């Protein structure tokens, strides 16, 4: 049992003990802490606190659940000079993330029958499911494409006609992580990724369409172009097999080099940031991150195309609100003991939540703070929040609802049920490549996202801007 000490609203301290270099910090409320599954992830918080160079706290967001080495919903900032970088602190799906776009049409005005056609059209244009990408030589990425993706990030897709230059201001880091080096990537990774751009994949990835149901901060919503009742599009995907292979290649290499020695969990394997191995991982991770930005850029392009075909909505009118990474390590400057310091911030299942005046943000977000996207489950809701730049969490917030049930448990619970009919009865039309995925992703497999965002708000990490209610969902 862990003894947590409440230090602020929805903020608990996991005291430093044993080999921990820093204490743990848990963002949660009583409802979430009552979850019996919290013990294992808390143990992981304690393990992460033992990594060299960690500063501040080993942090857990309210959507925390067990992950590989680091918990999902974990944040750890390492001193650039003395710290380590850990692939387990980023996750296999490098730059898995979410983007939100707003369609300038009230959701209720969309005709019911055409909604089904829209769903079918997107399902047709955006490959989903296991191994589904854009098959065929004309779509396969060449070495030159890979180099450009690494160097330019999402801008590469825009030069190829997928979206608009104005989109870039609405993507975290303008859709490019600097320091990417294509030479750090294996042939196997390129093979895995060659036809996967513009596809959602399987697991918990999705394209979701619905209604902006409720505004909590109308002024901020208005500044971002969001009104109650409008149609929204939420896209969740990452770097597909490409990112997985990069993570795997690095893990294999780190293990062979003995970087796991002395760690409480081999999955935390990490190399010094300044070492050759550490630099190589960052360079490779950045390529995968830039690949993922392109992936979501191309998916949004396909969704815009579908709206144009079915509803005659001009693609430029579908506004990208924001695109966030929630599996990433980034170099950021934060104040430590009163002195600005460059840190490598690992966010694994956590979202950057810069507040107003953060220099990296585009002008509109420098006024309001950055949008924080919190997908929930396909039945209840997702949330749009605004970052407050809380230094206690290195300006981070949660990334979703967090699993309440394992995939196996969810599968068992929904065995022998017509899942599509059930969801339709709840007002959500679902299309998927695999009914198994739908069973694993049923709403009750997740915590209630409303409770999760309450905790984030209470802890002062981000404020709620809008509640989004899903209606049309494509799963892998």
């Amino acid at each position: 049992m862990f003894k947590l000490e409440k230090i602020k609203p929805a903020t608990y301290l996991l005291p430093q003990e044993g080999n921990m270099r820093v204490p743990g910090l848990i963002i949660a409320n009583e409802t979430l802490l009552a979850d019996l599954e919290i013990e294992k992830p808390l143990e992981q918080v304690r393990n992460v606190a033992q990594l060299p160079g960690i500063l501040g706290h080993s942090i857990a967001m309210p959507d925390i659940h067990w992950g590989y080495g680091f918990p999902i919903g974990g944040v750890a900032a390492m001193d650039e000079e003395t710290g380590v970088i850990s692939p387990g602190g980023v996750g296999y799906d490098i730059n898995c993330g979410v983007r939100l776009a707003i369609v300038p049409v009230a959701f209720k005005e969309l005709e019911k029958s055409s909604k089904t056609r829209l769903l079918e059209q997107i399902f047709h244009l955006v490959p989903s499911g296991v191994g589904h990408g854009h098959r065929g030589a004309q779509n396969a990425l060449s070495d030159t494409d890979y180099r450009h993706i690494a160097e330019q990030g999402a801008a590469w897709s825009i030069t190829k006609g997928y979206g608009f230059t104005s989109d870039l201001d609405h993507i975290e880091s303008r859709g490019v992580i600097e320091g990417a080096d294509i030479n750090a990537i294996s042939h196997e990774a390129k093979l895995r990724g060659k036809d996967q751009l513009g596809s959602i994949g399987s697991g918990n990835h999705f394209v979701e369409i619905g209604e902006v149901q409720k505004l909590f901060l109308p002024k901020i919503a208005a500044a971002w172009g969001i009104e109650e009742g409008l149609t929204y599009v939420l896209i969740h995907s990452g770097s597909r097999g490409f990112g997985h292979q990069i993570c795997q290649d690095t893990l294999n290499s780190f293990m062979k080099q003995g970087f796991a020695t002395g760690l409480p969990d081999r999955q935390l394997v990490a190399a010094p940031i300044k070492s050759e191995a550490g630099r190589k991982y960052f360079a490779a991770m950045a390529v995968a991150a830039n690949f993922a930005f392109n992936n979501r850029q191309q998916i949004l392009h396909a969704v815009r195309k579908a709206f144009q075909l079915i509803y005659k909505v001009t693609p430029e009118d579908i506004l990208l609100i924001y695109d966030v990474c929630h599996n990433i390590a980034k170099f950021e400057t934060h104040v430590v003991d009163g002195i600005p310091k460059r840190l490598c911030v690992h966010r694994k299942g956590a979202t950057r939540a810069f507040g107003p005046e953060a220099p990296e943000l585009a002008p509109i977000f420098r006024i309001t703070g950055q949008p924080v996207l919190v997908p929930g489950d396909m039945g209840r809701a997702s949330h749009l929040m605004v970052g407050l730049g809380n230094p206690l969490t290195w300006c981070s917030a949660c990334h979703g609802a967090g699993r309440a049930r394992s995939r196996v448990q969810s599968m068992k619970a929904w065995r022998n049920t017509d899942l599509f009919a059930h969801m339709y009865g709840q007002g959500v039309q679902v299309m998927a490549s695999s009914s198994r995925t739908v069973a694993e992703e049923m709403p009750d497999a997740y915590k209630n996202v409303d409770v999760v965002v309450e905790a984030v708000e209470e802890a002062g990490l981000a404020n709620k801007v809008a509640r989004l209610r899903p209606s049309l969902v494509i799963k892998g």
Partner: protein
Amino acid sequence: MNEDTKRLFFGVEAHAPWPEKLPVGRLLDEEHRHFTLAFLGNIEYKTLREHLKDFPAIPMKTGSVGIFDSCLMLPMRHPNVVAWHAHWLDSHSALESFQKILSNWLSEAHYSMENREWLPHLTVCRKPFDPHAWKKSFVSLPFYTGSIHLYESKGNLTYTPLWSHYIRPPFEEIEHTADIAFNIYAENIQQLYHHAFMALAFKHLDFLRFFIQEPSLNTLDDIIIVLNEIVGRADCEGGCPMKAVSFHGDINFLEDSTLQWEMIIDV
């Protein structure tokens, strides 16, 4: 016929990700599918039951794994069953060795045994059936064997165990907060790799195409690296629902010195 006379055979349970649809025929229910180790015919159960006290020691600690690699119509000349041939993943199958031990033990106890090489196969259907349809629909399937039973054939494709010897499965899926998780059991490191591979193949049949024969394995991490190489290839060539086997867990020794590893997989 004596009241105690029963139609008996020794067999071993078979488990596989059975296809939902199979061609027409008198299908054996999934829970009745087995490998026959020794067919005894109609014999007095009471006498055999006495002999069971001296049942030979079973050399394996876990079930065996293999692949159904072809579809057979048996017997060859005048077929009356459809069977799937078993190819063991371990080059020296402990189950094959045990079948010989069992057969010898029964012969020594004066039970009439067939004097021919054991053909490991699983009967899946009895006459009438369309051989062409069965051959055409066949796809390779992974399987593992479970406990050993003395079965009574009740007719109408129903078999009831009268005596059983529990054998630990080579793997079992467990509930875990992780995406997918298994406990893998084995007697040595090579077998641990085989059993882990088959656990993954149960989840994704296409995996079988990418099996790496006899890689150099000294540690658990070696196994994980090889499994991930297979995952990578499978994902590349046709997509794979599993993205990586995690560097998680250690090899534990159970009371009977069986190796155990908790394998978790990212999807």
